[in-house]
């Protein structure tokens, strides 16, 4: 309780408030620009936070996360191009509504449902994260190892890659984490005598590379896309009839989004898809979906914004990122010397609650920004790519250099960018690579500690109930989709193809 109040009081700092307002505006711009998203925005912002204290640094990164996730809806509705992948389902009904001259109504619903979803998830974060941290406080290395393994196994179902490709990308990320001096034995691994590799490969240059620089190369193939903006008079708050139609969807999607966000490695994109599908499934008029159903926008937007707060739960309480952007924020925490995990709520309670309160404030801020400024922010989509992407590149390179004032980091970012581009070209998602890089060292360290604790009898891990529980979850995450798919097909065959 003390941390809750002192965390709130931290927000009384005018400097922090001004930073949060600027970060919210910046996040809305980033989210509205096709190709840029919350993850890239947070990665590019990270070097700018180096001179700041941890609270403002992490607060503005979370502000970018929340506001950019919302802002994807602006371009989804007005130009039929999701600003972020999490807004892809918003296009389905938002753009048809805009074409019918109801862009203001669609954006109004997007703003309201995003805010409700976001606020709901932050309240859940405030309640759930300390409880989860308290539960994890007594975990010993085998439990932590199994939990980290479970977090990594969730990579199988994220991003736009297939399960096998996601796991390969995650594995390559873990491999990168092993470069450098082994913490347990001080043996140099894969350093090739280079002193720059002695401390390992930095998280931030890799993230700037795979999320920012690789996107530049992806955009090079999309130059022919012409974006036409639908005319919008003014944004309007939803009518009584719209609220009546959508409130159940908003509540349901807020819950779904928060839950999906809490699952390690799952993020707003998965949440919005499930939120949208559930909205359609429970709707009295499912045939309207895809043709301008206001519930479709509510279902998608409430879920994707709710996932932001949810994703911060495992990030702060366990040190396991809940999404790609949360992985960048986790890297930011590490760069600023903050150790996420169960001890955060006992040793740095004020810091943790200050982050929660700032997220809550940002959700209210983007409500105001969205209502008043959506029309203006929609214009940023008209910035020519010939200006935008060279600028992103210069910021990426200078920001990477500024981290450690090291040209080696610049080469790492460039190499990661090129590798990230080819990975995406061949159908691999780069998100597992980033998460694998963050969790790789932790995984090996906890395996080593477990082996010491269990006297090198690894099979004893299966005799510990909680460890076994996480292993079962890991197996379900890895093989569940294939298993359930086979069962579904067999059921379908046995019932003559009628089973859904």
């Amino acid at each position, binding site marked *: 309780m003390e941390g809750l109040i002192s965390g709130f009081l931290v927000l009384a700092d005018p400097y922090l408030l001004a930073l949060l307002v600027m970060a919210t505006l910046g996040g809305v711009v980033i989210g509205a620009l096709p190709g840029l998203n919350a993850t890239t925005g947070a990665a590019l912002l990270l070097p700018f936070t180096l001179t700041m204290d941890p609270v403002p640094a992490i607060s503005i990164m979370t502000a970018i996360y929340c506001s950019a996730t919302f802002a994807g809806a602006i371009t989804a509705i007005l130009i039929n191009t999701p600003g972020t992948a999490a807004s892809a389902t918003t296009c389905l009904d938002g753009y048809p509504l805009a074409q019918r001259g109801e862009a203001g109504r669609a954006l109004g619903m997007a703003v309201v449902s995003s805010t409700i979803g976001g606020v709901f998830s932050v309240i859940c974060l405030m309640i759930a994260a300390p409880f989860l941290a308290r539960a994890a406080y007594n975990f010993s290395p085998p439990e932590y190892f199994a939990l980290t393994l479970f977090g990594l196994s969730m990579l199988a179902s994220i991003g736009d890659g297939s399960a*096998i490709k996601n*796991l*390969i990308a995650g594995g390559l990320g873990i491999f990168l984490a092993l470069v450098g001096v082994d913490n347990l*034995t001080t043996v140099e691994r894969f350093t090739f005598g280079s002193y720059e590799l002695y401390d390992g490969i930095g998280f931030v240059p890799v993230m700037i590379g795979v999320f920012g620089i690789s996107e530049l190369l992806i955009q090079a193939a999309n130059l022919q896309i012409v974006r036409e903006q639908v005319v919008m008079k003014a944004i309007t708050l939803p009518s009584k009839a719209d609220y009546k139609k959508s409130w159940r969807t908003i509540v349901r999607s807020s819950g779904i989004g928060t839950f999906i966000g809490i699952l390690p490695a799952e993020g707003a994109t998965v949440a919005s898809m499930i939120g949208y599908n559930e909205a359609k499934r429970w709707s009295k008029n499912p045939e309207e979906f895809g043709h301008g159903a206001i519930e479709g926008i509510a279902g998608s937007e409430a879920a994707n914004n709710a996932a932001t707060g949810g994703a911060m739960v495992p990030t702060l309480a366990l040190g396991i990122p809940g999404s790609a952007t949360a992985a960048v924020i986790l890297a930011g925490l590490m760069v600023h010397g903050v150790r996420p995990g169960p001890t955060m709520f006992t040793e740095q309670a004020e810091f943790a609650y200050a982050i929660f309160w700032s997220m809550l404030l940002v959700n209210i801020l983007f409500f105001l920004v969205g209502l008043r400024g959506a029309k203006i922010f929609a214009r940023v989509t008209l910035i020519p790519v010939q200006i935008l992407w*060279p600028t992103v590149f210069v910021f990426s390179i200078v920001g990477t*250099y500024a981290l450690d*004032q090291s*040209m080696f980091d610049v080469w790492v970012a460039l190499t990661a960018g*090129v590798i990230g581009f080819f990975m995406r070209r061949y159908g691999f998602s780069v998100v597992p690579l980033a998460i694998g890089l963050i969790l790789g060292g932790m995984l090996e360290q906890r395996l080593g500690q477990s082996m010491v604790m269990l006297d090198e009898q690894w099979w004893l891990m299966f005799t510990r109930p909680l460890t076994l529980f996480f292993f079962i979850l890991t197996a379900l995450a890895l093989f569940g989709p294939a298993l359930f798919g086979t069962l579904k097909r067999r059921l379908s065959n046995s019932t003559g193809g009628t089973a859904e």
Partner: protein
Amino acid sequence: MANLPKFENSRFERWLAPCVIICFCSVAFWISTTFREMPPILKRGIQPADFPQLLLITIILLTLAMMVFDPIKLRENFNATTAGSLGLFAVFGALTWIDLFLALGIFAAALAALWGERRPRILILVGAVMPLVIFLLFDQIFEIRFPRGLLTNLWYG
């Protein structure tokens, strides 16, 4: 490059990625066999090579599984602009040896031109004004000292 026959290109690239991954993992595995073995009292649970080897074998097996169950399907052919942008990365890398900001300016202007920008004022904005503003921002506000080079020497003296 954009006119290359799609099928040929796809067939080559479909096998390229798994082969690169398997070769990379095999070489890394071989390197890991050269890691120093720790005596039992110092090994702290696992040998330095154990975890990397376990991981590399897993990646190789997953890659083989991918080749069978989920082969790479290319969505589009390699675009000339993308190839040109990649080429500019190499130019940027080479120019950084002369000066980081000279390299950034040339890269930014050349990328804008490659992507179809022809207006000189925009090319100057992207290639000169924008890198200069970013340099001053980091130099004056964040107090970052950039590596010395042809242009930065003019500022640092």
